[in-house]
C-alpha cells in the first residue's frame, strides 16, 4: 500500500506540473518513454523470472484446479469488461478488453496503454486497475462470505501475489496463500502479452 501511494503521488505531481507549466509537447519525449518502457519490461521480466514461485506455478501439473484458476480469472474478467463495454458506446470493445487485461496491475497496464493507445486509455487503465486493487482490499470479507474463498483471489487478479495477498490470507485462510501467489504471478506475467495480443487482433 505504501508503494501505491508513492505511485499516485508521482502521477498527481505530473498532472499538476503539466497543468501549471505550459510545456511544449515533444515527439522526442515519446521516443524516450518507449526506450524506458522496454527497460521497464526487462526489469519486470527479471523480477518475475527470478521468482522461484513463478517456475513452480508454471510446472504445476498435479493440481489442475490451481492451474485453471488464473485461466478462469482471465476469461471471467474479459467477459465482464466486454459486457460493460456494451453500455459504454464511447469505449471500443478492444480498448475495454485491454484495460481489463491489466488485472489490477495498474502501474504497468497504464504506461503500456499510454504508449500504445494514448493518455486517455492510459488514465482509464490506471483508474480501473487501481480500483480493482482497492475494491478487493475493501470487499474481501464480503466476497469470501457470499462467493467463497477463491473469490478475493479472482477479484485481486495480478495483485493477489503482493498487495492484496495479506487480506486474502486473512479472510480466505493461510491454506489459500499459495493458490493466491500462483494465480497472481501467472496473471502478472500474462499482462503484457495479453494487452499486446488484444490490441494487435
Amino acid at each position, binding site marked *: 500500500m505504501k508503494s501505491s501511494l508513492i505511485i499516485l503521488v508521482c502521477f498527481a505531481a505530473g498532472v499538476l506540473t503539466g497543468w501549471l507549466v505550459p510545456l511544449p509537447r515533444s515527439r522526442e519525449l515519446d521516443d524516450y518513454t518507449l526506450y524506458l*518502457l522496454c527497460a*521497464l519490461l526487462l526489469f519486470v521480466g527479471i523480477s518475475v523470472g527470478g521468482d522461484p514461485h513463478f517456475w513452480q506455478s508454471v510446472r504445476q501439473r498435479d493440481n489442475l484446479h490451481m492451474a485453471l484458476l488464473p485461466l478462469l480469472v482471465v476469461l471471467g474478467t474479459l467477459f465482464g469488461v466486454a459486457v460493460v463495454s456494451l453500455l459504454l458506446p464511447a469505449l471500443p470493445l478492444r480498448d475495454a478488453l485491454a484495460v481489463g487485461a491489466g488485472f489490477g496491475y495498474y502501474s504497468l497496464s497504464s504506461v503500456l496503454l499510454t504508449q500504445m493507445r494514448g493518455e486517455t486509455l492510459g488514465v482509464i487503465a490506471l483508474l480501473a486497475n487501481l480500483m480493482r486493487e482497492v475494491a478487493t482490499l475493501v470487499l474481501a470479507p464480503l466476497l469470501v462470505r457470499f462467493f467463497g474463498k477463491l473469490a478475493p483471489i479472482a477479484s485481486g487478479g495480478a495483485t493477489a501475489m503482493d498487495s492484496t495477498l495479506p487480506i486474502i490470507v486473512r479472510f480466505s485462510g493461510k491454506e489459500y496463500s499459495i493458490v493466491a501467489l500462483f494465480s497472481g504471478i501467472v496473471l502478472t506475467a500474462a499482462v503484457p502479452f495479453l494487452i499486446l495480443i488484444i490490441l494487435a487482433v
Partner: protein
Amino acid sequence: MWIIVLFFAAGILLGRLLRTHASLIRLADQLAMVSILFLLFVLGLSVGLNREALAHFGTLGLQAAMLTAGAIAGSVAAVQLLSLSSRRKR
C-alpha cells in the same frame, strides 16, 4: 510494439538465469519501480497538458469504475465453476 513483449520475455529468461542472485533480482525490482514512477509522472504530465483530458476526468473515472465492476463480477463468477466442481467431488 512487439519489441516490448520481446524485452519482457528476455527479462523472464534472464531472471531465470539469475534466480540464485537475490541481490540482482532485488535491483531489477527497484529499477522497475523507479522507471514506473518516472513513466507515471510523464503520463500525469501529458494528462495535465491535455486540458480536454482534464475536463473529462470524471467521465474517465466513471468508465473505469464500470469496467472494474465488470472485471470483478466476471472473474468472481468464473471461479465459481471451480468451487462448484470441487464441491461435487467431495
